[in-house]
Each structure stands twice: as structure tokens, then as C-alpha cells.
């Protein structure tokens, strides 16, 4: 069966409207995620990853708005749905976990109640049933002694435990898509690895698709089958995770790859010795004309400054946007 993909984004454009100025923060972004698939969005801070994710769940708010393009969930245009229908999707079919496990939980509510609320809200369960299901949900994310932990308040739990609770909440209703926006940046490295592993295993067991967002190309490539590299509001390269290290096509991706620590070299060299991409991401209002990467690109030529590069299709479903791609 070649059914519609789980989620399909086509030519998405997100405008930032500050009254006086009116600029596209995200432009021409397209990607699709099939059922149970894992897709990653990578890019430096401010390139538009989070607002793209918010657009997917219909939660962009002033001054940001979807200006053009389509976002289809199981073939249905999300923006065509009523507010209530969108709300019913959120948390039930499409769930999301965030960077900050410290602040994403309500400090005055026991964690069990916050998990149970999902069953009451989306599955119409009674509180008694929901509390029972909350204990199971905590057990599923490998929290020890879940029947006691449900009564704990967030401040009684460590960062890693709180992120587990967040995952339990997100996966409570068995969603089809889990959006993980920088889910582990606030945690230390060992806990980070545990949490990622847990999330990956749980989603694989249940056939939940993942959209993972991060500035860490290594992390994303490790978790996801395919990766989209974003720069200044555009996807500049989309590849299978294996191809991206072997033969990336875009100079920006190459820069990201070069800035990753090589295995085992980290301790010797330290972060400061890694090769970084020179320059900074331009602010939305000052996006350069032509290819937006041209001021920072070593390969840039005249055409890069005047004309935005078209999409070039590579083998195996990959694509790149660069005049002089490898």
C-alpha cells in the first residue's frame, strides 16, 4: 500500500510580521515523514527548526504565521482543521518533547497527575483509570518504583527523571509522530545518551515516527534515518544519515561535519580546537540575496550572490541546494 505519508510538508513558508517589516523566517521547506520513520532537522541556532515544528502542530502565534505551503497529516491539511480538531491531534496523534525538562512540568502538580491528565483529556478515561495508566506509563519509561514516583512533584526528581516523565506524557496516548526539539541539550552527556536510547527504543517498539530537531548533526544522524540540514530558513540538503558523513554535497553540511569531534579525539583536542564555520547566521531581516550561505561560503562565486540555487536531486532520494555542490 502506498498510502499518504504520515506527515508531508510542502513549500512551507513562515512569515515574521513585526508591523513595519514583513519577512520570511522559513521559506520553501519541504519534507515528508512516513509511518514509523525517523527524520532529523539540523542547523545552527535561529535557522527556523523550532518554528517549523510549531507550524506542524498548528501552534504558530503572532508575529509568526504560515504564509504559504501545505502541511498534511495523513493526507489532511492541518490548517484546514478547526481549532478543536487541531487540539485533538496535539498530544494524541502528534506529541512533542522539549529541551527544558526543568520547566516543562507544572511545579505544583504531582507528575502522575500530569501523565494521567493526558488519558482524561484525549482518551476520555476516568481519573481512577487514568491514574492506573499513569503508573504503567512511568514503568514504560523505566522509572523505578513508579507507583511511588507518581506522587512526586517535579522538583523531587532529577533532570533525567523529569525528561523520562516528559517522554511518558508525550507517549501516553501512543502518538503517530513524536517531535523531539533538542530533547537532551539541558542534560549531561551520560544521561543524554540514556534518554535518547530510551526514546528511540520506545518509538521503535510502538512504530512511532520521530521528528528530531537539534543543532548536533552527530546526534541526529545517529537517531534518524534521514536528515534535513537547515540554514537560514531553508533546507539546503536532505540525505540519508549514512550518506551525510560519507559524501555530503553542500558546503554548509561539510562545515557541520568538520565541526564534529572525531571519535576519540575529543579529549585530546577539546571543543575549542574543532573547526567551526566562520561567521554567524544572519538575522531574518538581513538574509542575503542569492544563496543565503554565500557570505560564509568558501566556494561562493558571482552567481551565488545573485541567484538562489535550485533543488538538485541526488541519488537515493537525497537533494541539495547549491550552485557548486559536490
Amino acid at each position, binding site marked *: 500500500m502506498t498510502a499518504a505519508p504520515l506527515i508531508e510538508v510542502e513549500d512551507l513558508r513562515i512569515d515574521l510580521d513585526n508591523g513595519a517589516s514583513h519577512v520570511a523566517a522559513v521559506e520553501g521547506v519541504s519534507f515528508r515523514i512516513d509511518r514509523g520513520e525517523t527524520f532529523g532537522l539540523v542547523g545552527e541556532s535561529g535557522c527556523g527548526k523550532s518554528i517549523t515544528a510549531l507550524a506542524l502542530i498548528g501552534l504558530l502565534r503572532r508575529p509568526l504565521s504560515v504564509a504559504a505551503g501545505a502541511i498534511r497529516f495523513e493526507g489532511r491539511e492541518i490548517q484546514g482543521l478547526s481549532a478543536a480538531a487541531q487540539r*485533538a491531534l496535539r*498530544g*494524541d496523534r502528534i506529541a512533542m518533547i*522539549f529541551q527544558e525538562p526543568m520547566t*516543562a512540568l*507544572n511545579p505544583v502538580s504531582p507528575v502522575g497527575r500530569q501523565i494521567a491528565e*493526558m488519558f482524561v*483529556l484525549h482518551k476520555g478515561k476516568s481519573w481512577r483509570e487514568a491514574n492506573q495508566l499513569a503508573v504503567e506509563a512511568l514503568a514504560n519509561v523505566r522509572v523505578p518504583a513508579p507507583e511511588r514516583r507518581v506522587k512526586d512533584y517535579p522538583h523531587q526528581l532529577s533532570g533525567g527523571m523529569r525528561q523520562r516523565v516528559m517522554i511518558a506524557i508525550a507517549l501516553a496516548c501512543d502518538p503517530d509522530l513524536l517531535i523531539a526539539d533538542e530533547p537532551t541539550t539541558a542534560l549531561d552527556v551520560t544521561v543524554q545518551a540514556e534518554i535518547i536510547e530510551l526514546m528511540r527504543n520506545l518509538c521503535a517498539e510502538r512504530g512511532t515516527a520521530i521528528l528530531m530537531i537539534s543543532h548536533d548533526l552527530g546526534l541526529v544522524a545517529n537517531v534518524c534515518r534521514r536528515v534535513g540540514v537547515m540554514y537560514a530558513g531553508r533546507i539546503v540538503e536532505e540525505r540519508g544519515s549514512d550518506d551525510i558523513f560519507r559524501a555530503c554535497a553542500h558546503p554548509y553540511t561539510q562545515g557541520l561535519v568538520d565541526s564534529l569531534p572525531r571519535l576519540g579525539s575529543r579529549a585530546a583536542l577539546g571543543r575549542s580546537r574543532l573547526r567551526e564555520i566562520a561567521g554567524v547566521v544572519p538575522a531574518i531581516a538581513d538574509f542575503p540575496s542569492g544563496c543565503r550561505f554565500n557570505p560564509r561560503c568558501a566556494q561562493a562565486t558571482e552567481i551565488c550572490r545573485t541567484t538562489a540555487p535550485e533543488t538538485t536531486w541526488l541519488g537515493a532520494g537525497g537533494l541539495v541546494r547549491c550552485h557548486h555542490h559536490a
Partner: protein
Amino acid sequence: MKLGTSAIIGGVLFALAIFVGLFAPWLAHTDPVMGANLMNAEEPPSWIWWFGTDAQGRDIYSRVVHGARISLTVGIVSQLVNSVIGVTLGLTAGYWGGWWDDVVNGLTNLMLAIPSLIFALAIMAVLGPGLTSLLIALGLTNWSFTCRIARASTLSLKSQGYVQAARVLGYGDLRIMITQLLPNMVGPIIVIGTLGMGGAVLAEASLSFLGLGIRPPYPSWGSMLSEARDQITTAPWLSVFPGLAIFLTVLGLNLLGDGLRDVLDPQSRSRRA
């Protein structure tokens, strides 16, 4: 959570007033209204008449004890009404913003510009004296501080991760307000409510003293003061004991409110840290 000494003293005073109000019929010696006996008129305080008697020979102690019922009922009920109004308006205004916020802000500023006692006086003048009018007048005129606090709390809580997260998880507006916003602002609301209750007890006394609240012969502390006005030199006990009751109750509520502020209001806590 650690309560300071003043909060404990305040709490004890308020609890005592509640206790007296609840058990007034058992604590009182005589009926506060019908227990008149001209044989005992204007007795000074003694072992038999603890707080003395008035010109009709009614036992002041029994009247003060029964007065606690009325004064506390007015204080508690009217402040509850104020809190509900203030929280509802402030929370929705802060959450939704836009024209509704403008309307609520306008109303709040209006309420703050008119002294609430004057406003209550005007309402009493229209509704006439009595307990119900008192509850309405005092319940509708003192919600502006609660409203301000609720609105300000909402504005700062709205950007918190867990409120954003709730939206992402499919919570509706009402559910977000009830589960994410309200529980995180109860501290300051309780503080304002406790202080406001003291204010309402005073306001009841003032209105009754002016003859607009509880009318004689029913014993509220304010109406007793009003009756005692002419005998303040000849029979000072008629004024002293109801006055003391008002003083101790309001003092208790203020001490309690200030003490609760120290433990419940995170803003004042962080200011000190």
C-alpha cells in the same frame, strides 16, 4: 514551609474569632437581642456581667460573642466573592489579552480610583441596610487588587515552559487556566484574600456604625459601636469591648496575611533571597 511568630499569633487570633462565631449560642450567657432586662441596666463589667450591660440591660459579652458571627460571615463571604471575581477577571484578561484585557483593565482602574468604602456606601444607600445588601456591597467593591495580582501572575506564568507544553499537548484554554495557571498563583491570592478579609470586617463595622449595615437591635460589632456612641463617657464598656473585638480580629488577619506572604508569595521570597 515555616510560619513566622507574627503569622502564628495572627492565626491564633483569627481561629479564636472563628471559634467564638461558630459556637456563639453555647458561649453566650443570654439571648443577644431578647435578653433585655431593665433591672440590670448599665451594669459595669463584673463577675456576673463580664463585659457589663447596656441601657436595656442586655449582656454585652453575649452580644459581642454573637456579633462575631455576623462580622465574620460578612468578612469571609464578601472576600470570597471578591476573590472569585478578581481571579476570574484577572486570569482571563491576562490569558486572552486583546479587547477583553482592555475592558478588565478599565474596570479595575475605575474600582481603584473610587475608594471602595465610598462605593459600598453608595450601593448600600440604594439597596437599603441588612446582611444581604452588606454582602453584595462589600463583595462587589474590593476585587481590584486580587484582579491585578491574578492578571500579573498570568502574564508572567504564560511564558513558562509548562504552560507552553500544555498547549502542545492539546490542553484547551480552560484546562490550561485551571490546571497550569490557577494553582501557581494561589499563594499571592490567599495573601491578598486574608488581608482583604480584615478590610471587610472593618468595612462592615464602618457601614453598620453609620447605620447602613446591620441595624440595631441585631448585634454586629459595628452596630454595637453605633448604639454605644452616646454613652461613651458614662458607660465606656459599651464601646470598648466591641471595639476590642474588631481590633483583635483585624490585627489577627493582617498578621496572618503578612506572615503567609512570606511563605506563599514567591515574589517576595525571591526579593529577599
